[in-house]
Each structure stands twice: as structure tokens, then as C-alpha cells.
């Protein structure tokens, strides 16, 4: 079980009769275990729909979506979702939020406590264990959400524009933290974003989706050495070239929106 995702001939239709809208049409895409893939596309292209299908929140109309070869049947602890709006339990402290998945898995108290503390420390949240979410900034909330998801050790991280609500410096800090986590913990990551630079900076492959209905348009492979500092990565030729490639492909889609 390595956290691979297989999507073949996926079709998703919302509504019925005259209300019918096809959100995703004939999408096939395979993601290897341990791979970091970003999905970009114009708004309304169904990229969040795709993520929620992999999460098991939405039923599919046709095709198959499987994790490690087994078709998805609802949400499950093999996957973890990080939402843009954090979705922290407001009545739980930072520590209690991070403990949630471990409690539900029936991990003994002492072990759960140690695990939660490890991820709290990893996300630079030490000293904030007993704060409630309302006392935290957006960046800290998102780090709590990440710690909460990592703590119960899902193989796959599904991230829905997780840094979209944060300002640029904070976003960069969290991006670098995410790269470190991905390198250390061996997770498959599916990352939804509309930020081309973010997608290229983070991922091994970037899938660009068409709009209405959404399907795979192009896939760009990004071969970057991410062990160095950010300034080396963003000034590299590969980064610039791939950023332009993705941007151009996305640009075509956005243009077709203006001139149907």
C-alpha cells in the first residue's frame, strides 16, 4: 500500500434534467505513491470536485477512482484533507484538534499524546497547545490543520487551495514547510491551486484542466532539485521554463472563457 491513485474515464454530473451540468468529463490520470501532483485550472474547471471525489465526499457518475487499486467508497483514514478554511474544531484546543484522528483510531492516550506533540513541534506550534483556534492567525490555523492531518498518518494528502487565504510571505513559509514534510514523511500529495508559481514550485507534475466540463488538458513534468533554498529554485532555468509552460497552457483556457 503506497498511496497510489488511479483515475480512469471519470465523469461527474451534477443535477438532473435541464439542471444537468457536467463538471468532469472523461478524465484519466494516474498518480504514483509518494508523488506530489498539483492540479491547476480556471475557476469552475472542476478541480475541487476532483479532489472531493478522491476524498470520497462526492459520488461519481461514471468511470473509476481507486486508491491502491481499490475503488473509493466514502471518506477514510488512508486519506487526509486540508481545506482552505482550515476546518478546525473551534471547541478544541490546538492539542485536542491534533489528537482528534488519534482518538478516533483508538490510539492509547500516552502514545497519542506523544504523536500529537511531535507534529505540533514539527509545525512550529510549540507553546500554543492550549490555545483555541479563534486565538490563532490564519497561517497558524493552517499549520494546526496540517498537524492534525499528518498526526493520524494518512498515505495521501488532499489539499484544496490550502494557502489561498494567506499573504505571500506566509504562503512561502508554508510551502517550504510542506516540501520538507513531503520529503520526510513520504506522502502522496494532490494539491489544488490556481497559483501557477506555487504549483511548479511544489510539484513533480502539474495537471492543467480545461473548463466546462473539466478534463485533463496537459501535464507538465517539473524536474527541480528542491533540496536547496527557495531563491536557488525560483531563479533556476527549469523553474522559469516550466512556469511559463504551465502559464501558457492555463492562459489558453482562460482566454477561451472570454471568447467562447
Amino acid at each position, binding site marked *: 500500500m503506497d498511496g497510489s491513485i488511479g483515475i480512469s474515464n471519470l465523469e461527474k454530473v451534477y443535477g438532473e434534467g435541464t439542471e444537468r451540468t457536467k463538471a468532469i468529463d472523461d478524465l484519466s490520470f494516474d498518480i504514483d505513491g509518494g508523488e506530489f501532483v498539483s492540479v491547476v485550472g480556471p475557476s469552475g474547471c472542476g478541480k475541487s470536485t476532483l479532489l472531493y471525489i478522491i476524498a*470520497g465526499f462526492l459520488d461519481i457518475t461514471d468511470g473509476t477512482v481507486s486508491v491502491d487499486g481499490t475503488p473509493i467508497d466514502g471518506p477514510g483514514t488512508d486519506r487526509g484533507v486540508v481545506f482552505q478554511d482550515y476546518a478546525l*474544531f473551534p471547541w478544541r484546543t490546538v492539542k485536542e484538534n491534533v489528537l482528534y484522528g488519534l482518538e478516533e483510531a483508538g490510539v492509547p492516550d500516552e502514545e497519542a499524546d506523544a504523536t500529537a506533540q511531535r507534529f505540533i513541534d514539527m509545525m512550529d506550534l510549540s507553546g500554543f497547545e492550549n490555545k483555541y483556534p*479563534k486565538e490563532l492567525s490564519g497561517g497558524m490555523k493552517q499549520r494546526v490543520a496540517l498537524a492534525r492531518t499528518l498526526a493520524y498518518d494518512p498515505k495521501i494528502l488532499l489539499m484544496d487551495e490550502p494557502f489561498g487565504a494567506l499573504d505571500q510571505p506566509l504562503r512561502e513559509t508554508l510551502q517550504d514547510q510542506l516540501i520538507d514534510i513531503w520529503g520526510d514523511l513520504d506522502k502522496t500529495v494532490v494539491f489544488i491551486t490556481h497559483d501557477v508559481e506555487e504549483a511548479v514550485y511544489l510539484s513533480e507534475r502539474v495537471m492543467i484542466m480545461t473548463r466546462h466540463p473539466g478534463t485533463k488538458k496537459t501535464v507538465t513534468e517539473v524536474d527541480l532539485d528542491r533540496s536547496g533554498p527557495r531563491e536557488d529554485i525560483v531563479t533556476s532555468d527549469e523553474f522559469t521554463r516550466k512556469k511559463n509552460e504551465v502559464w501558457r497552457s492555463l492562459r489558453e483556457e482562460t482566454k477561451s472563457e472570454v471568447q467562447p
Partner: protein
Amino acid sequence: MATNELWTPERIPDPFAGVAKLLFDWIPLLLLVLGWEVVSGRAVSESVLPPPTAVAAATVDLFATGEVVPHLAVSLLRVGVGLSLSIVVGVLLGIGMSQSEAVENFFDVFLSLIYPLPKTALVPLALLWLGIGTKTAVLIVFLACLLPIVMNANNAAENVDRNLIRSARMMGTSDRRLFWKVVIPATIPEILTGIRQAIPFAFISLISAELIASEQGMGRLIRDAGSLGRYPAMFATIVIISAVAYTAVYGFEQVRERVLVWT
């Protein structure tokens, strides 16, 4: 880096903070009492409007002779039982309606019908069914408190953040446990708001019921004192029940704030 991210609310200095604010808040009432004292016996006959000093004396007297004690005890019991019943039934109904369409459809029509009805209009009917006394008063208090509690609980349970539910399910929470782990805690703030709204209704309906359909209780005492021309005692009873209702609301708000440290 982490520390300066911590959100701190802006603090606007309040010129009337603390004791000064407390005094300031009570000035209108103080003025009213002073005006009343001046008017009584001068512009208006003392027998119709006894001065606050006489009311204060009558209040002390009601406690000293022990006359008010059984009435107050009975009234508090009725409010307590009626309100408690409405909390239990209201919370179950409000959340139940959010979870099941059948439950919602079944109760919706009743709730819509009794919502605009003044619950005190049901006192004669309750009297006919349950007779004079505690049962009638409890029923009226229960009905008066039920609606705000049902409405708030239902509204909150229907609007639980969808992503909280999704997160919990992703982390392995079953549908059954979801209710206790997410729906209930997410709904608590509004349940407490509903109870807070219900407390004044409880006292209003209690006194209304007791004025008509009771041989005991503060409402009955008001009526008896009034019909016997004991106006200072009548005013004193009103003052006592008002003070009790005020304390109940104030006390509940203190508890609520303590429970909801996370909001």
C-alpha cells in the same frame, strides 16, 4: 516568527470600565426611584403609588414574616421544572428535526402554529385540563420556553460547518459518533443562546399563569395583595420577582461565558 502571527484584538479603552461603568448603568433606575419617591404622596396619592421607601419596608417585611417564602419557592420550582423540560424537549426536537426529514415534517406544522400564539392565551385551556396549580403553570412555562430553544437548536444543527463534518468523517468518525463528536459541540453556543432567550419568557408566563390559575406563587401573591389593598406588598412582590428574574439571566450569562471560552 510564530509569535507575531498571534492574533490580538484591538483594545479600545472604555472610560466607564469597571465600577464606574456599573454605577453608570444603574443611574437611570436610581433616577426613576428618586422621582417616584418625590411624586408619591405629593402628585399622586400614596395609597395608589406607595413610595419606594414603603415598598422597601414591605419587601423586608415579606421576608421577615416569612410570608413570601412558600410563594417564591413554588414559583421557582415551576420555572425550574418548566424551563428544564423545555430544554430537554427543545434540544432533542431542534436537533432531531435537523437530522430527519420525517421528524421535521411531523413537528413543523405544530411549531409554526404555536409560534405566533401568546402562550398565556392557553392558560384558561390549561386550567380546564390540568386544574388550578403547579401543572398548569409548568405547562405554560414549558410552552413559552420551548420555541426559542427549538428554533436556535434547529438552526444551529442545520448549519454545522460542512467541512467540520467532512474532516471528522475523514478521520474515521462514524455517522453515529458524528452526532456527539461534532454536531452537539457545534450546536452548544446557539442552544445556550436559546436558553438565554427563554429565561425571561419563563418568568413572564409563570406570573401570567399564577395570576389566573394558582393558589400559590408570586403571581397569586401579587393578585391577593392587590385585591386586599396591600399596595406596598404588591409592589414588593413585583420587585422581588423582577430581581429573581434578573439574577437568573445574569447568572446564566456568567455560566455561558465560562462554557464558551472557545467562541
